[in-house]
């Protein structure tokens, strides 16, 4: 089974968190510079009390710097958004974004986009005379395309390119968002169902599962929550009608599902056989949900457009 289709946003979110945490297989430079992922989608006001909401904030007391990271999956920047970012001060970072004083000594707003949209993104930044570094992402790395960081080591790191293999970025810090595919939701939720079986639950509310599987649930807006919920219900519905039919049943109102057959009710020798059946069921479910994506030789689809 091949292929992943994390959205551009999730790839970058997981990648930067992974680089800050010294995850194996990624460059260690950011970690060595002392950067730590601090907030995900933290909204805070600038000096004019206008909101900004970077996708990720990373900060280093070691090099006394904070990076406000903004991903752009499309070709355009929003001039008003950039203007609001330009009005963020050290004091805003300290008092409104709760960044440590040492780390907020200097900061950069970093725009990160796809390499194929580099020219268009650059125009947006150039047009407003913003000093924001522009990083462009390709399959083989991330390069500094325009402007410069305040920390010289970062300029050296991203010039011409920080080489990395985007197919091997971590993806499990934040595995799902509102744009995730159905099979990605099923990939995460069915192991959770096994956990519920182990906990001997007989009925589980969909709302509980949403919070259990979606790390950003607490900061999601209503439309995004709705999208995740619908996908989760659909994943459970398909599982309960097909491969997991013997084990789970979706309630008529779709607000919960029942565990109708629990391997834990069996003796340990029989239990292993059932776990193997559940493993085959999961494999078949994922394959069925991905029907049409070829026979296992398809290329990685990294930069899928968000569907919501």
């Amino acid at each position, binding site marked *: *089974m091949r292929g992943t289709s994390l959205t551009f946003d999730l790839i970058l979110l997981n990648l930067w968190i992974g680089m800050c945490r010294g995850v194996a297989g990624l460059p260690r430079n950011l970690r060595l510079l002392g950067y730590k992922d601090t907030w995900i989608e933290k909204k805070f006001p600038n000096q004019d009390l206008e909101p900004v909401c970077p996708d990720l904030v990373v900060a280093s007391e070691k090099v006394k710097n904070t990076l406000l990271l903004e991903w752009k999956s499309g070709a355009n920047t929003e001039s008003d958004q950039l203007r609001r970012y330009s009005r963020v001060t050290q004091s805003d970072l300290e008092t409104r974004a709760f960044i440590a004083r040492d780390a907020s000594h200097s900061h950069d707003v970093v725009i990160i986009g796809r390499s194929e949209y580099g020219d268009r993104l650059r125009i947006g930044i150039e047009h407003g005379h913003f000093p924001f570094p522009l990083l462009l992402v390709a399959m083989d790395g991330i390069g500094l395309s325009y402007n410069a960081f305040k920390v010289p080591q970062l300029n050296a790191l991203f010039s011409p390119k920080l080489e990395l293999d985007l197919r091997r970025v971590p993806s499990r810090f934040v595995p799902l968002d509102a744009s995730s595919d159905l099979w990605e939701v099923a990939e995460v939720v069915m192991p959770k169902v*096994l956990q519920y079986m*182990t906990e001997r639950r007989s009925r589980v509310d969909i709302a509980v599962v949403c919070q259990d599987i979606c790390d950003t649930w607490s900061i999601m807006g209503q439309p995004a929550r709705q999208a995740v919920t619908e996908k989760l219900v659909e994943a459970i519905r398909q599982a309960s009608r097909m491969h997991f039919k013997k084990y789970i049943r979706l309630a008529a109102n779709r607000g919960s599902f029942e565990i109708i057959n629990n391997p834990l009710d069996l003796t*340990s020798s029989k239990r292993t056989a059932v776990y193997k059946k559940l493993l085959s069921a999961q494999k078949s479910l994922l394959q069925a949900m991905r029907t049409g994506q070829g026979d296992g030789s398809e290329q990685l689809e990294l930069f899928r457009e968000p569907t919501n």
Partner: protein
Amino acid sequence: MIARDRHQMAQILSDRMTRTYTTLSERQELEPDTSLVKTYMVEAHLSASAEPSQAQNLARSAFSPAAFGKASHVKIYTSGEPTLLSVEATVKSEQVTIYVDFTNSRYWVLHSMASSDAADWMIDRLVSSGPDLDRAWLPADFLESISQLGSFRGLNLDYDRRVVPDVDFQSPHVPVEFLKMQLWGNKAGDVLEILRKKGAFPHETTLSKVKVKFSLDEATNEEFSLDDIKYDGKVTARGTSFLSHIGLVSRVYETYAEQIQNLEKKYALRRNTCGDRLSLEGSPINFLFDRPIANLEVFSQCLFSCGEPFRLWGVPLRLADDFFRVNAVDLHVGSPLQFEIAPDFMRVYLPTGSCGNTIVRLYTNLQHHYDSLVRAVDGDERNVFDF
């Protein structure tokens, strides 16, 4: 014999241990297995601060006839203490008594004087009866440090790559597939050093058992235990001092518990939400392979096939030629965990609420069935374990 309290239990076990050793050393005979005290470290899926009643309920359920079958005639006896039970059973016509001491609700100690066959069967059955109990797994590097707690008197090596057959064992230049060795004597450390040298068998030299002479009173050294400590948490005691035996077990268990708590505290991934603020804590554990994984697909399938010894459930998804992702479940405890696997590393994400025991078991079994030199490191490439 049923114990009314832990004091009496200790007396029973101590009498057996010292009487056997004295009698047999006078006759210059080896001890029959049935006369030896066996201690098993078993970890419960409970908080260390859980009420004794919770641990007792768990023990009662784990030793129920449903788990052991009616033929075993399992009977549970309470004692004068809320944290001690005696369990009697019949295993292949042998009468077995097990003392279950859950003074620490999470880290249980079980003792028996039954034959290894019978007592091991009981423990196997106990830990496979449900997701609430597992052995305390002692990695090879931990066993080596345990050997330094006293006088190092022997070792067993146990490596079996056939569990993860990701190479063709018939072709030339393949790594060693199987290595077992038993060595008694004071030169155990020297032999270990030779086997680990480059050009010898560094990837396959995995300690599975160490024999340690240990004394609480190092000055006189007259009262001692001669313990065989095995990687699956079983300790077989000989010698003249039950106190020394239990002292050694306690030292080992304390270190083990520290490692488990450290794993859960430092590495388990958790979300922190405060208003509209979200941050993550914890970090994946990086398993590094000194010798790259030969066949990622076979490796992944073997690890996640639900079978022993890994007992992991998960569908490996190939994301690139040399990269797999697995959303898995640890069937021992029922906790989900995630893996990303490349030839030279494996990232393991431990969600909050998961048991650190999962990581120690994985690490131990990789040493025994894949590569003795596998390392578990943090984001700064420091060893996760400090044994």
